[in-house]
């Protein structure tokens, strides 16, 4: 099972890295979708079925669509979606920062004796998740719901053009 | 109410779906190569040449190679060469009569100008060919079809033509007789139209289903031209 994990991890990180380096925005968005799907595969591997499907539904189904729409609406020229690659002046500090963070994280992780349990996780059924959401976490659920509503309304308001409706527009 | 129109539309298509199985008036398809619809009598597409005797198609062509149709043809798809004997005397029949049906536009002008009722419109529409250049160039042999065939495809019109031809022949015979008897007066031209209405006995008219009564307006009445032998 560890082999499956390594494969998933490698593919996920690789697609994400390539996506971040590509010039073609559409390709990088699609590769990132592959990366998100890889994360969903990791959730499946870890036994969190429900989260995996939610991840696919939200990221592959919804966020990718919004991203693609944004890319198509903001293309620099009409014909392509190429963007300038990262300039050296930005890339170098970014690499140094990222490398430093990675070094710190890896050092901390490898150096810390993490206690782990050998027993498999308790199987969490959808029913239990629902009960938890509606019971102890009901307040958080309501807050998230309100947040999502406000965010969507805000997004619509921000993105909508303020052009007055054309009176001659066909219904 | 919203949706009632949608339901009405669904009902219409459902009626068609069911009706096409039991109602022959709805189901109008003919399975073409096996079943064919009967063409209307006035259907026309490309010209053909009429001959009178199936035993000798080349010899009894009505065409005298006068080249009127060749000159009148708007897209110029007709090509005629008159046959001549070794002394160069015209034999009044075509040696070459070609129609390029890929150029022909089915206007029927050749039929209307022909003084001899020699060229008529055919109903043959399956002319597809694999030969791009030669296949659509019809020669005299391909074009030559019998008077009986003409009666089959255009019965009313053919009967009128036969009647006119018979009358012409009778008039010629009368003229010959008048020549023999010099005192006889020439028949008036005005009598032609009245006599054309009377059906003339014709061997081909028996095969035609339509009664060979007054020819309809579509049937070209031969114009008052001098007889070919004049």
């Amino acid at each position, binding site marked *: 099972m560890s082999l499956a994990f390594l494969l998933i991890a490698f593919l996920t990180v690789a697609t994400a890295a390539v996506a971040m380096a590509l010039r073609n925005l559409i390709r990088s968005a699609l590769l990132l979708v592959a990366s998100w799907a890889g994360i969903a595969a990791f959730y499946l591997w870890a036994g969190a079925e429900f989260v995996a499907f939610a991840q696919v539904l939200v990221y592959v189904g919804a966020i990718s669509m919004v991203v693609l729409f944004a890319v198509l609406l903001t293309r620099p020229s009409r014909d392509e979606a190429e963007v300038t690659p990262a300039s050296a002046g930005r890339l170098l500090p970014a690499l140094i920062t990222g490398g430093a963070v990675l070094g710190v994280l890896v050092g901390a992780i490898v150096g810390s004796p993490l206690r782990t349990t050998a027993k498999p996780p308790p199987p969490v059924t959808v029913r239990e998740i629902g009960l938890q959401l509606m019971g102890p976490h009901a307040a958080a659920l309501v807050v998230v719901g309100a947040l999502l509503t406000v965010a969507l309304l805000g997004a619509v308001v921000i993105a909508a053009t303020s052009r007055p409706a054309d009176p001659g527009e066909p219904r | 109410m919203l949706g009632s129109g949608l339901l009405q539309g669904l009902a219409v*298509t459902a009626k068609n779906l069911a009706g096409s199985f039991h109602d022959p008036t709805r189901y109008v398809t003919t399975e073409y190569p096996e079943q064919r619809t009967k063409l209307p009598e006035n259907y026309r597409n490309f010209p053909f040449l009429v001959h009178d005797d199936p035993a000798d198609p080349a010899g009894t062509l009505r065409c005298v190679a006068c080249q009127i149709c060749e000159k009148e043809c708007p897209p110029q798809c007709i090509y005629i060469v008159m046959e001549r004997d070794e002394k160069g005397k015209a034999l009044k029949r075509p040696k070459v009569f070609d129609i390029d049906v890929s150029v022909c536009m089915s206007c029927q002008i050749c039929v209307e100008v022909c003084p001899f009722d020699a060229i008529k419109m055919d109903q043959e529409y399956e002319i597809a060919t694999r030969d791009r250049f030669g296949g659509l160039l019809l020669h005299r042999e391909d074009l030559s079809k019998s008077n009986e065939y003409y009666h089959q495809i255009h019965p009313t019109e053919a009967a009128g033509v036969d009647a006119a031809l018979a009358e012409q022949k009778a008039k010629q015979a009368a003229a010959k007789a008048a020549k023999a008897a010099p005192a006889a007066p020439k028949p008036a031209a005005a009598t032609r139209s009245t006599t054309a209405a009377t059906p003339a006995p014709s061997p081909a008219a028996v095969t035609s289903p339509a009664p060979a009564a007054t020819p309809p307006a579509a049937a070209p009445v031969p114009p008052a031209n001098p007889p070919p032998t004049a």
Partner: protein
Amino acid sequence: MSAPAANPLPLLERLPVALRDACTNWLPESWRWLANSLLSIVAVFVVFATLFALLTLAERKILGRVQNRPGPNRAPLPFLGLRTYGLAQPLADGIKMLTKEDIVPRGADRVLHFLAPVALLAFSIMTFAVIPYGRTLLPVELDAAVLYFFAAGAATELAIFMAGWASRNKYSLLAAMRALAQLISYELPLLLSVVAVVLEAGSLSTSVIVEKQGAWLFGILPQWHVFTPWGFAGFLIFFVAALAESNRSPFDLPEAESELIAGHLTEYSGFKYALFFMAEYFGMCALSGMGVTLFLGGWQAPFPALGFIPSYCWFAAKLLALLFVFMWIRATFPRLRIDQLTRLAWKFLVPLALVNLFTAAFWVLSAGWAGPLAFARWVVAGALVIGPFLALGRRLSAGLGPRSYRYA
């Protein structure tokens, strides 16, 4: 496939599982599950590929009959020369598709152009995994099966976008944008109508949802969800949204021939085109299967007396009936305009689906009402369904009517 039930089932009911077991019994225990899963995949694929072939023929036949013509009826069976009412037409189509040249435009993104049909077909096949085809026929028993179904279905939108973008064709790109807008718009009512079912059944598992619809009212009336007020409205919303999600007429804007040539299919030919076609039909079958499962009682027989007929036959019958309605609708309605399409989704279906959710909640809460209260339950739920429908429908169709033309 799921474990057999406790009480012995009739032979016909057990037949598919028994056949599978006969095929895999000789294998060691540790390998058997793998062989079983592979067999399930093969069986599902073979059945639906055959169904796809027959559906293409049936669709053309039905469209033909609606237009009072026979439809394809000439392709003869090979080497026999028998026409059999065009039964060999799918074969001829398949050979034609396979032997046609595969053309990729010069400016196309070759990788994505190749990947799009493959991904689309893969995701469409994945959706078949969680549909219970019969009492014992469920390829994968998942706790969150409904969520899985829609997650896999959501990925197909991406494939359509890939196809449209990779073709590097204005029409294709327009189609891709339209497809995105349409699929996002209709995902919402689709999911909302399903949530009502999940609310009633209390489970995301398809097998549980079907089993909950197994009772009979007064011993004769089936208790399928479609026979409740909220279920009926939910089914209609689901069906309309499913039409749009599977790009079927009258919502086939992404591939509208008259406006966009063929949309994202413009630059596809040969076998890739066939894959798209197959995926479209698979998507239609999967959504119909889900509709049958969620609303039409799945594999349940409509009357207790008809229980002797195997459950998978009932499922097949319902699936085929639903597919027929898909085709019937295609034969009837003209295509919507893009603004009408989005308006229908956001101003009509989404509010209706939200109200329907309330109706379903009321229905669940009032489950214990008996006697005259049961009657009141029906009245209230019915009013909750019909009232918003009339009000919203009036708003949607306000100002619209048969047009009168004046000839200049």
